[in-house]
């Protein structure tokens, strides 16, 4: 149980796919102009990652090493198409505003990376923990960046006007350069958080040693 928790936790701060591993940035920067896009993309990614990792982990002993890439792509593409169709059927508005980025989950490096580096070697339960952790790590960053950009760049949150009417939106934040800037701020925030957490755990360990001594 403790091991699963550790795997799950890794994706959120220590090995955050966007802020630490720095993969899959392209679509992350592009969709984060609106909080509902951030939530939708995060959940869609988590869904595809969860099911792809589980399936590939289940079949990891029968997937031949030399044909693993095409098999990974088939599995990921199948789940991406499923989420695309489901969103089109039941969340048409969201699916419309996310446009082409949902089908592009197929080639998202985060999923390919986790499947290749983790799911093809580890047990099913570990993969569930890993994909949920990575998914949550991806989603919080997307929602955070999107909230920041939407609030300053458009004066709204998830489409609802929050800033007073006198507030002149700073368009810079909605445009790609603003995305890079906010993204960089989140990277530094994450490094700061990581540093603090490491210090705290080091202290706890030292204390535990003292007690033991």
């Amino acid at each position, binding site marked *: 149980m403790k091991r699963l928790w550790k795997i799950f936790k890794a994706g959120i701060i220590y090995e955050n796919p966007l802020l630490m591993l720095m993969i899959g940035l392209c679509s992350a920067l592009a969709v984060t102009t609106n909080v509902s896009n951030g939530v939708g993309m995060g959940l869609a990614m988590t869904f595809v990652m969860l099911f792809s990792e589980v399936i590939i982990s289940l079949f990891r002993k029968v997937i031949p090493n030399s044909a693993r890439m095409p098999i990974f792509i088939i*599995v990921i593409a199948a789940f991406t198409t499923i989420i695309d169709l489901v969103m089109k059927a039941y969340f048409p508005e969201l699916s419309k505003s996310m446009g082409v980025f949902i089908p592009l989950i197929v080639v998202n490096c985060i999923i390919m990376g986790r499947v290749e580096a983790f799911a093809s070697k580890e047990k099913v339960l570990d993969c569930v923990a890993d994909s949920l952790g990575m998914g949550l790590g991806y989603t919080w960053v997307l929602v955070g960046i999107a909230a920041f950009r939407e609030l300053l760049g458009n004066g709204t949150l998830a*489409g609802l006007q929050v800033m007073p009417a006198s507030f002149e939106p700073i368009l810079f934040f909605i445009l790609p350069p603003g995305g890079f800037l906010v993204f960089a701020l989140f990277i530094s925030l994450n490094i700061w958080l990581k540093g603090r957490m490491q210090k705290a755990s080091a202290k706890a360990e030292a204390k535990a040693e003292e007690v033991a001594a």
Partner: protein
Amino acid sequence: MMKDIVKLGLILAAFAAAACVGLAFVNQATEAQIAVNAEKQLNESLSGLFPEAEKFVDATAELKIADPAVALEAAYLVERGGAPLGVAVKAKGQSYGGPTTVLVGVTLDRRIAGVRILDGKDTPGLGANAMNPTFFVDKSKKTTFPGQFSGKALSDPFEVKNDVVAITASTITSKAITKMIKASADAASARLEAFAAAPAEAAPGGK
């Protein structure tokens, strides 16, 4: 060696077949709902453009769009009590990110009744703002990009940055959609000419 290749191929085929079966099931489960959504959206858009209309008569075969880059998808004669109100045209063309579908209504006095963007593949946050109901090109008047065409006379130049306000940082999208709207409106207008030429066709008691 040969055996290995065959084995790899068979394993790959097995995965592909399993994925296909799964997708077929999901497609079957969602297909009807997606079609219902599209139809609902079209109907809502049509009655949004012509709130007074009672009937939309399919007239796709009677229209032609002159611009080869814009494809006619459907056209409707808009009627109320047998008398024509205008023509609605659904057309598809190429925008910055991919094919985009617009619905354009034209009234009898050669003005745009309204424009709806039904589908598009432009960049979220930029070109896709053409479809965003809360993105205003004119913040003080709360006009959306397609909204600015409502009531526009067909004799206007339809030029971005002249009489059409562009979406910030999406000039290509703005120009492409404006072109589609103009082409569709011209086709609708040509059909309206036919009304004037043959008023008997529009007489009450039609289909």
